[in-house]
Each structure stands twice: as C-alpha cells, then as structure tokens.
C-alpha cells in the first residue's frame, strides 16, 4: 500500500521488436543489474537458437539524446513433453529496466510473447520464478497466471 512512493515511467513511445545480436550487451547488462548475475554465454546460446519457437523480444524507448535504448526484454521457448507436459510456451525471463517500470512495458512484453506462442500453435504458457519474488509473481498473476499442476522439487548433491 505504498503507491505514493512509486513513480510512473515517462510516456516516451516504446517500440517492441525482435531482438538482434547488437541488443545482447544491453540485455546482458540489464539482466545482470536485476539478478546480480552476468550470464553472457547463457544469453548468446539462447540467442543463437532464437526463432518461431524461441521468441526473443526487446522493448526500446527513445533516450534523452533521441537514440533508442533498451527498456526491457522477454524470452521464452515452446517445449514439448518435458515433465510429461504437452507443448507449452515457457517464459524464461521478462524484465523491465527498474527506471521504466509501472508504465505498461512489462505488460506489452507479456502480451507480445503470448502472441508469439499462439502463433507457434501452443495454447498454454508457463513460467517458473523464485517463491519470494512477490513483485514478479504479482505481475504474472495480474496477467491471469495461476499455479499449475506441477511443483518443483530439488536436492543438494553431496
């Protein structure tokens, strides 16, 4: 209930498009800023497999100097039959620049990746996130996502 402390993103026009190789440094940097981990190889490997079944989308906004800069990105993949699940679109990441949040950019990325999954012929999308990431969970839930029939289990290998 701290809406007063939140700032609305400025309303410069935001464009969504397919990610390009020259977006990767900014994507890797934004991901590192938000998660605290730089995963250069991970991003380059995902990028090399991008396509109809592996949508990689970026949102960009005109900066003060007029040059476009990265505002956010989303990436996902259609996977089939893993964990016994019929084909389904997985959202691997959906991130908006912290300074540009609450302006609807996250929702546009979400709608766009859902559209790509639809075009790829799947009827369901899914994601996995840290249980204590309440912000991201509230966002996904605001888009109608709910807990599905799977649960994640893990153990320490010793």
């Amino acid at each position, binding site marked *: *209930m701290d809406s007063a402390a939140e700032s609305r993103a400025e309303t410069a026009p935001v464009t969504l498009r397919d990610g390009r190789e020259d977006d990767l440094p900014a994507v890797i940097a934004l991901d590192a800023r938000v998660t605290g981990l730089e995963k250069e190889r991970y991003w380059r490997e995902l990028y090399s497999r991008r396509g109809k079944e592996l949508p990689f989308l970026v949102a960009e906004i005109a900066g003060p100097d007029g040059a476009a800069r990265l505002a956010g990105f989303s990436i996902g993949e259609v996977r089939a039959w893993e964990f016994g699940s019929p084909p389904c679109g997985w959202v691997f990441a959906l991130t908006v620049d912290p300074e540009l949040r609450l302006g609807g950019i996250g929702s546009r990325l979400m709608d766009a990746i859902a559209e790509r999954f639809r075009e790829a012929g799947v009827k369901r999308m899914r994601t996995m996130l840290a249980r204590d990431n*309440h912000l991201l*969970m*509230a966002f996904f*839930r605001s888009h109608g996502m709910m807990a599905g029939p799977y649960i994640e289990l893990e153990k320490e290998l010793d």
Partner: protein
Amino acid sequence: MRLQTATRIALYATLELAGNPENQITASAIAEKYGISINHLAKVMRDLGRAGVVESVRGAGGGFRFAGNAKRTTLMDVIQIFENVRGNARAPAREPGEATPAGQALRQVLDEIDAITEATLRSITLDTMFKLIQRQRQDAAGPAPG
C-alpha cells in the same frame, strides 16, 4: 488452508468496497449480500478501519470506503490483520514434541506448505481477485454462444 470467519468477512468487505471505489457502502448492505451477521461485520470493519484499509464516511447514509490501492493491496495485507499466517515458523517450540527430531522434521514439512501459502497470498492483489471474480461470474452465466 482455512480462514477464520472474521478474515473471510474482512476479505468480502474489502473486495466489495475496493470494487466500488465511487460509492460508499453501508455495513448492512455488505452483511446482507454475504449472509453474515451485522454485529460480527461491525467489529471486523472497526479492525479494518484501524488498519487503514477502509475509512468510514460520515453524513447522509454513512457507510464505508476503501482507502488503499487495489493494485497494490494483496490478500496477505488483509489476512494478516486478523491472523498469523506464518505464525509458527519463527516462534519457539510450543507444540508437543516440537523439539524432538520427529517434531523438527514435521516442522520442516509444514514450513514448506506455509512458504507456498505465503507466496500465493502475497502475490494476489485485490485487482487480480476482481479478474478471478469476473471469471466466476462468466462461468456461472454459462458458456458463451458459438
């Protein structure tokens, strides 16, 4: 998971008020709609008022109004006014046998369940609830033609 009656009443009242931000609504209208006792509701409304979730409106008709932001107020924000959702997680052992290895193992399992409950309640805003309520209404109305 079960909610205490007061918590359930508080959620209904909060959803009712937050879903009608333009109108002030009387306690008796809420009581009637949800089939709950006016006395019980009056006490719940006092608690919600003290917590700053609702405010009472003086003057003609009286009634209540939601005082928060429906997109930022979560189910947990309301529930924790009335009950201790993760009450046992950090408290010292007080159930019988809790200090034993079996008690500790049981605690670990129950904590796993509590953590999922907490994540769910903290991530569902009133605004998200309105969407779920809307879907229930549509389901009740039957499938759309065609």
